[in-house]
């Protein structure tokens, strides 16, 4: 047990803060990587490349692949500060998902080929898991990959591909052996996007952004882009995001809570400040508890990573709590802000800012419930694999 940071870790935090102070506009409050926004893209990619140039993408990777071999706690401090400031870091699928899989299951050649361009934010990756008929039940995916000499030929449809039309590579799960048990016939490929066999169709979402359908029509992939072993893609999928890229989602909530508290200290309703309203105070306390639970679940993950120990309850508690509590958090925000909360960004009377008090508060957090699997599915994992209840 050590709840204090070392002086060096505190200095690291200050260094990160200094960078953000210098590189972000004063009232920056737009971060969501989950909703495409064309205006956002140009700033975000330039910003992320500056982070790359500092060596802070791939902070925890081994040095031979462009990383800094820093400890996970440094990554968490970095994530805390970036998340609190809504810093527009893109290529999550690149440095989170693809890099994690490569570090765990890639060949030496693949690591040397793919990781440095991700570190430099030169190659942008998009996610190719979900299909129209394979959402929560991902293992039922139908995208087919067939070997053809030194290449694979891939056909099928992926969906909810954020930033797909801006990306260079698709981190794609495809079925290579339709006769194998369904979890044993899936393989991961890095599919080059800029080729005739790959096209996109837009899906405009409730948050004002866009995702994509991704159509794969005899897309060709060199065999050397097969990540991990043939037929063992499910192991990489279940491995999830690379532990070394530990995130700090609670800091997004902490930032919103801080803004809502500040709002409550100035906004009056029914003849008194909101902060003096006992119902509001109770709601603020509930929001604080939601943030604190997420924070401690993350600290627990950090300790698990540091001691190389698998998480308790099949790792499902943190996921379920995060998914369920952040939608409740946004609901509480909207309850406190009240009717002004329906006003959109740019409206003169919109309270606080759009991310904290506006409709986006719920739109943005509601994404949590489905991105990466619904809470209902994670609850099934918790019950069966975590608690040992019968399937």
């Amino acid at each position, binding site marked *: *047990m*050590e*709840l*204090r*940071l070392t002086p060096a*870790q505190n200095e690291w935090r200050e260094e990160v803060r200094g960078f953000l102070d210098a590189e972000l506009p004063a009232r920056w409050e737009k971060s969501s990587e989950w909703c495409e926004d064309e205006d956002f893209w140009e700033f975000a990619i330039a910003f992320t490349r500056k982070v790359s140039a500092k060596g802070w993408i791939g902070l925890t990777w081994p040095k031979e692949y462009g990383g800094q071999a820093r400890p996970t*706690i440094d990554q*968490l401090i970095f994530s805390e500060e970036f998340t609190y400031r809504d810093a527009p870091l893109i290529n999550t699928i690149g440095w989170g998902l693809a890099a994690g899989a490569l570090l765990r299951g890639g060949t030496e050649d693949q690591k040397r080929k793919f990781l440095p361009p991700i570190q430099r934010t030169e190659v942008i990756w998009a996610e190719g898991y979900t299909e129209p008929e394979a959402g929560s039940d991902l293992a039922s995916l139908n995208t087919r990959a067939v070997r053809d000499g030194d290449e694979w030929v891939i056909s099928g449809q992926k969906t909810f591909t954020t930033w797909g039309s801006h990306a260079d590579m698709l981190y794609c799960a495809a079925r290579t052996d339709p006769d194998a048990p369904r979890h044993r016939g899936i393989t991961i490929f890095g599919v080059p996007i800029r080729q005739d066999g790959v096209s996109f169709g837009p899906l405009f979402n409730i948050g004002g952004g866009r995702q994509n359908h991704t159509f794969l029509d005899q897309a060709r992939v060199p065999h050397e882009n097969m990540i991990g072993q043939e037929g063992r893609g499910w192991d990489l999928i279940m491995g999830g995001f690379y532990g070394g890229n530990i995130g700090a989602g609670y800091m997004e909530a902490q930032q919103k*809570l801080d803004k809502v*508290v500040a709002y*409550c*200290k100035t906004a009056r309703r029914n003849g008194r400040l909101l*902060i003096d309203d*006992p119902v509001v*105070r*109770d709601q*603020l*306390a*509930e929001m*604080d*508890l939601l943030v*604190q*639970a997420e924070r*401690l*679940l993350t*600290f*627990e993950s*950090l*300790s698990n990573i*540091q*001691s190389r120990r698998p998480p*308790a*309850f099949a790792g499902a*508690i943190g996921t*379920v*709590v995060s998914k369920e509590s952040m939608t409740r958090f946004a609901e509480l925000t909207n309850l406190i802000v009240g009717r002004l909360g329906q006003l959109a960004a740019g409206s003169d009377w919109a309270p606080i800012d759009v991310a904290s008090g506006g409709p986006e508060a719920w739109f943005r957090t509601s994404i949590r419930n489905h991105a990466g699997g619904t809470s209902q599915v994670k*609850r*099934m994992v*918790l*019950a*069966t694999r*975590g*608690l*040992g*209840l*019968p*399937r």
Partner: protein
Amino acid sequence: MDIDLEQHQLDLAETAHRFFADRSTIGAVRSWEASELGYDPGVYAEMADLGWLRIGHPESVGGVGGGTLELSVIYQAMGRTLAPVPHLESAVIGAGALAAAQAAPGLLERVLSGTAIVTPALAEDDAGYGPDAISMPAELGADGGLVLAGSKILVGYANSASHLVVAARTAPPSDDASGITLALVETSAPGVGLTRLPNLAGYPLYATTFDSVRVGPEGVLGRAHAGWELLEPVLDRAAVLRAAQIQGAAERLLELSVDYAGRRTQFGQPIGRYQAVQYLCSDIAIHAHLTSLLVRYAAGLLDCGLPAGKAVSEAKAQASRTARLAPERAHAVHAGIAFILDFDVQLFTRRCRHWELDLGDERYHRERIAAALAA
């Protein structure tokens, strides 16, 4: 940064787990609940022999060091088994108040060796908690002593206690917490009356009345009017330990529920295969686990001397919620049979009701969180 327990704490947890599993069987818990005493003096004496009453107190007053984290793993084990002992009231709060006031060293040593019980008397007619809820007046005499008149309720183990730590109001509050004085009162002193309060948890809870009870200057703990200052850190530690006890009870309810759901067959399959039942079980798991994390964090902050008030209230607010939710979900899984006294679930349900409301309920601690946010 690391929120893992240390190896010696894990070892202590294992020892405590085995100790209470062996000594505080469900049968023993049931029989002590029915007794006048309301606790198991044999188990309490053994805890004293193990040095568990001295944990968390400085060596200068006869403690053995260690802190809230060490105690929390013992409390988790006590919660799992519903071990009936007056440890929290006496070895944590009573001894904590005496140690903080550097008063009555002889009595403190007897408390730490388990041969005397000192219990706090805080709640009044409205059963509130916190400094605002202390209004029983006491008159300070010229000699520095005082005279108590009024009553305190929900006093645990008063029947077994040699002394009470009574919080009384000696001055109007000039801020949130001032004007309270702590008095050490012998239960056998003239004018002290005890009335048992039958209750849901089967706890030995008492109303204590004070009919012009005279307390000498040596019985005033700490400085006059500054009693809450002295007591608050003690109660913070106690609230975290109550939360650890709730965590243990919730973890046991989870085991009972998962086990039952795996064995009970209806409509041709184990009910644990139904997602509705799986949700009930996962709710218990989630709330027990969140309680454990918040307990560990608050205990860790207390032990390294960092500001911990908000974290303490986060732990107890969550624990109080868990104390409601875990039994409710366990009853839903077990259905009718949980309603029957021969089954064990109800023992947890009834204890949890007391622990949920003790040392500040969810509402109290949420307000304390809000006050910290608003500051």
